[in-house]
């Protein structure tokens, strides 16, 4: 059924169709409509869920974590200051392997107070172990919430569905709202292998020493590495049911492009308008819109940018003291092969696992023995 709705409501409909069971959220401009519509849906029983009107975003994420660990499907939404307030708990949800799905409206971080859009808020959280989807249309927002639940629950990794403030959150677009029965076909009920219950008592997330922490985080990374393939696979399944393919990235006219633009969010669609105009004038330009930022789509980015003579990366964000964040990450993805000296990346010492001179000697031995790094990440001392 087609409706004209704003981006925020696309999040609400996504949460509704995904049969979210517990929603705990705190209002913040420009997210308020997400939770207002959801609370109406809960009140009139359109959505069979508990809506907890928490007193802060930190409590919102804490409540989502509590509900998720007992096996309920949870959803929340926030923006900027609220997302920053939740920061500690973002680590908790990912380290605790809880598939919470959260909508984040990209809004500038204060000071000064700004309710308008940029991406620093969500990108500041890129290291927390959450998957991140940057959407460019209201349709994509709704579809992504549903896909995010499916991928998150399969991998036990939480997801953020991200949209630009006002450009998307408050902009009305035609959205095809899928049929509930079809969504049920795509997204089965949440059945975690372990949950908090007196029927099978366990203590979750307790004191973890250096002898165990490293392996747990290794497992999180390894499961995150399965995500790109799973996102593509579930994206194809989505196309079969709903006619829309959900991908890691969207390339437009890149095959013969001499310059490829790289961007994300609504800017990623604005770029296409420019590409069309420029092509009319004979400029061989293409557009790469990165939809999934975490996990980083290495293979897709390398493949699509391979033939470009020049790459122009546009960041609606900046990591102070360094550079725009998409720029940093695309640049690092493209490094290697004929493009520079071999770099070997090692992960060591997580959770306090000891790093000794012997650790470094082993690293040097490995580096001496290999011309190129054979694995993207080389883990030191993980009990495999």
């Amino acid at each position, binding site marked *: 059924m087609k409706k004209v709705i704003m981006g925020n409501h696309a999040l609400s409909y996504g949460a509704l169709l995904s049969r979210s069971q517990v929603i705990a959220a705190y209002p913040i401009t420009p997210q308020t409509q997400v939770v207002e519509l959801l609370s109406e849906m809960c009140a009139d029983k359109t959505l069979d869920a508990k809506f907890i009107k928490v007193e802060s975003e930190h409590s919102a994420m804490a409540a989502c974590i509590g509900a998720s660990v007992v096996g309920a499907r949870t959803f929340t939404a926030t923006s900027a200051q609220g997302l920053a307030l939740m920061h500690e708990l973002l680590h908790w949800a990912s*380290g*605790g*392997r809880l598939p919470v799905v959260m909508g984040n409206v990209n809004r500038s971080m204060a000071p000064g107070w700004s309710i308008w859009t940029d991406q620093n808020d969500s990108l500041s959280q890129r290291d927390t172990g959450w998957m991140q989807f940057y959407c460019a249309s209201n349709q994509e927002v709704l579809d992504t919430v549903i896909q995010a639940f499916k991928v998150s629950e399969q991998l*036990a990794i939480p997801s953020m569905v991200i949209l630009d403030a006002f450009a998307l959150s408050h902009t009305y677009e035609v959205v095809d709202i899928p049929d509930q029965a079809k969504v049920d076909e795509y997204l089965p009920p949440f059945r975690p292998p*372990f949950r908090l219950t007196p029927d099978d008592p*366990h*203590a*979750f*997330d*307790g004191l*973890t020493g250096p*002898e*165990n922490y490293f*392996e*747990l985080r*290794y*497992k*999180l990374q390894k*499961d995150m590495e399965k995500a790109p393939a799973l996102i593509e696979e579930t994206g194809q399944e989505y196309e079969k049911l709903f006619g829309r393919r959900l991908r890691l990235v969207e390339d437009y006219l890149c095959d013969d492009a001499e310059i490829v633009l790289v961007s994300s969010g609504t800017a990623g669609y604005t770029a296409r308008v420019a590409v069309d105009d420029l092509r009319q004038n004979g400029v061989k330009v293409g557009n790469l819109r990165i939809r999934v930022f975490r996990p980083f789509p290495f293979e897709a980015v390398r493949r699509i940018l391979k033939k470009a003579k020049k790459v122009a990366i546009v960041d609606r964000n900046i990591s102070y003291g360094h550079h725009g964040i998409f720029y940093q990450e695309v640049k690092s993805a493209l490094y290697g092969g004929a493009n520079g000296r071999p770099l070997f990346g090692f992960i060591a010492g997580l959770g306090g696992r000891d790093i000794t001179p012997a650790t470094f000697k082993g690293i040097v031995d490995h580096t001496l023995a290999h011309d190129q790094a054979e694995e993207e990440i080389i883990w030191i001392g*993980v*009990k*495999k």
Partner: protein
Amino acid sequence: MKPKKDVKKIVFQSEKEMPMMPMSIGSMLFNKTGSWRNIRPEIKLEDCLQCGICWKFCPDMSIEIENEWPVVNYDYCKGCGICAEECPAKCIVMVEERK
């Protein structure tokens, strides 16, 4: 509580054996906290009133009731001395732990 069998500390050999998040899969009974103490309680049963106070106030559940009498579980007793202090019959004495 007496362990029913010899309970061991769990040591993982591989990440494959581990749950994906920190989730407990065993009790703490492998940890014989009896090794912490310097003094141990000894109950003189002849004077015991069976009042239940020592059982009630033991923070480590190390006084068990067996056949209606209190029995110290020396595997876990940390030697805090609460039982001796609270016993109304003064029939529990804290003695120096022997080697």
